[in-house]
């Protein structure tokens, strides 16, 4: 395509779908969220670590994709299923070549590779059904999603650890704004696996109980899993809009945020600037809020630095755990649910609040309309992303 001149488009989220520790569908997730159900519990496959696993077995991929059957691809397929008609509608409207695919993920098929490697160590050969090219890498996720959706535009994975899905939204917004696509299937997906659970354990930041983001008694995070997918179009009708995005790097330490929150501030200011909003416009912020002492403190300082004390701050990892590369997408879905249903969820586990975190963290479910919401995601390497979502009314 020649690079056409484009104006700044209005990006509509015409449909979305999520599965995570709270349920296998939007309806189950919102019901659990409203009832304050915690999706975190000890997981027998991970030495009893408290995890946010999806609550039901995942159906295998269709026969034609059986070579690519991994947990992460199954999660993506579950999230895609309810959106088939919206995706087909976007393809009919814009053309399959003009619909792109951008997905955030940090694990891809590593869980399957772990099992294959252990089998290799025990038997001297890889399992007969395992083929590295079809099971391990990110391109398999793209391939499976293309096959299931019929999308033929550019397709890729953003893999910046825990900010990946939020950055997938940023990339998707740019692809449309720059004229490289008219619609994007965007989202995030990650599956529980040994390397992430044991890796975070090695960093001594896994909590041995359901996490308490922003809570006085917080002592770490829980790993979760799930997927959330969105059909984003240049124009259209739907439950929400992508208004803006901001990205930055801390340039501080690899696994510790800059304590003054400067990188986080930069990302949030970028999202406000692009969306044409000011801090006073924001009705609530879905915080990254993992439940670790240092991360929540840095984010709290950053939010307090630029937003009025009245802004509501929601922490949702007490329900779902930290779904890593999928977290930004799952939390965007939860934010859109709040926008659609005119209420703000409780920050599960936050009470009693840490008095050192000077925020209006939601401790009760409130029936208040949210027109403008920010959702934060941060990651190893000092990668920060913030997306601005808005209602369509």
């Amino acid at each position, binding site marked *: *395509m*020649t*690079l056409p*001149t*484009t104006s700044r488009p209005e990006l509509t989220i015409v449909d979305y779908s999520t599965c995570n520790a709270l349920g296998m569908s939007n309806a189950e997730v919102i019901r659990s969220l409203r009832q304050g159900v915690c999706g975190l519990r000890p997981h027998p496959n991970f030495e009893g670590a408290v995890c946010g696993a999806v609550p039901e077995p995942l159906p295998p991929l269709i026969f034609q994709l059986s070579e690519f059957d991994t947990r992460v691809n199954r999660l993506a397929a579950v999230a895609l299923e309810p959106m088939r008609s919206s995706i087909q509608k976007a393809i009919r409207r814009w053309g399959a070549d003009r619909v792109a695919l951008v997905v955030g993920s*940090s694990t891809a098929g*590593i869980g399957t*590779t*772990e099992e294959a*490697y*252990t089998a*290799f*160590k025990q038997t001297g050969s*890889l399992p007969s059904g395992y*083929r*590295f*090219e079809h099971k391990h*890498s*990110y*391109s*398999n996720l*793209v391939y499976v999603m293309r096959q299931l959706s019929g999308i033929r535009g*550019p*397709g*890729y*994975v*953003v*893999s*910046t*650890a825990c900010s990946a899905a939020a950055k997938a939204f940023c*990339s998707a917004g*740019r*692809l449309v*704004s*720059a*004229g*490289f696509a008219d619609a994007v299937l965007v989202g995030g997906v990650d599956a529980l696996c*040994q*390397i992430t659970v*044991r*890796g975070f*354990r*090695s*960093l001594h930041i896994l909590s041995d109980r359901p996490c308490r983001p922003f809570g006085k008694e917080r002592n770490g995070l829980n790993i979760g899993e799930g997927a959330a997918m969105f059909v984003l179009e240049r124009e259209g009708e739907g439950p929400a809009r992508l208004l803006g995005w901001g*990205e*930055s*790097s*801390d*340039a*501080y*330490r*690899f*696994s510790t945020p800059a304590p003054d929150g400067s*990188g986080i501030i*930069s990302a949030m200011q970028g999202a406000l600037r692009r969306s044409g909003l000011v801090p006073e416009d924001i009705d609530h912020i879905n915080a990254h809020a993992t439940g670790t002492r240092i991360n929540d403190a840095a984010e709290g300082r950053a939010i307090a630095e630029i937003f009025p004390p009245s802004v509501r701050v929601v922490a949702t990892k007490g329900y779902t755990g930290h779904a890593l590369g999928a977290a930004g997408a799952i939390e965007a879905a939860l934010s859109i649910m709040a926008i659609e249903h005119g209420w703000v969820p409780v920050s599960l586990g936050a009470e009693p609040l840490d008095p050192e975190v000077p925020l209006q963290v939601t401790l009760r479910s409130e029936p208040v309309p949210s027109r403008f919401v920010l959702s934060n995601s941060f*990651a*190893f*390497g*000092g*990668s920060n992303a913030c997306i601005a979502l808005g209602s369509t009314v």
Partner: protein
Amino acid sequence: MNEVISVRGIAVWAPGYNDLRSWLCGSRDEAIEAPSSRLLSVRARGRASLLTRMFAEVIQQALGESGTDPGAVPLICASAFGEIQITGQLLEMMNRGSGALSPARFQNSVHNAAVGQLSIATGNRLYSTALSAGDDTLLVALLEALAWLRIEGGETVVAVADESPIPPFNSRLCFTPLACALHLTADPSASNTYGRLVAVRMTENPPGVDLAPEMRDNPCAIGLPLLETIAKRKSAILPLSLAKGPGWCLEYDANEVCT
């Protein structure tokens, strides 16, 4: 919206070849096994994977052509397989003794290890990202860069790098490590540019490429004909993917050079 995207610098690194010039001349030096990667501190270099060191090297070389500060340019790093060597080390740790993992290795196994370490090493607080798309990895890295430049303007550096999978996963997929980088600018007044990226388009029959046998399976190797064309100051339509069948191409015009 910025329409003119020009190339300010290019770089290649592979074992035996320290830079683009040695690659173009075919002057292989067997002693070259790892890049100097001077963007990273000595300590960080010692801990970094070959993949991260390759990214550091080509980014420094590409930006070095115009003397651009690596702390002041958005970084886009893309790799099909990512930190596969470190992943292999973690798999081995999981299957020995207690199965506990090294926290340093775990951190460095993420796909954005290179951009994270480089942003820290250079004090770069701008947008950066890490992408993956199999045989389309170069294509999507360029699309991400072009989208960024068209909206935000300024400059960016795009780097792609890959290492071969580890045993026992490399029985069908074994290749020489390779990294390529392009320093791109949307500033029409920028000096010392090569030519201009005119268009990225889907083509029914992309032109074929002739890659050395040890490079044919490296997803980044599709960058070699592009960089050779740019270095030799030719105009051409070049494939951006190793995938077979209809594919994406880049139209490159060597004649529109800003001086």
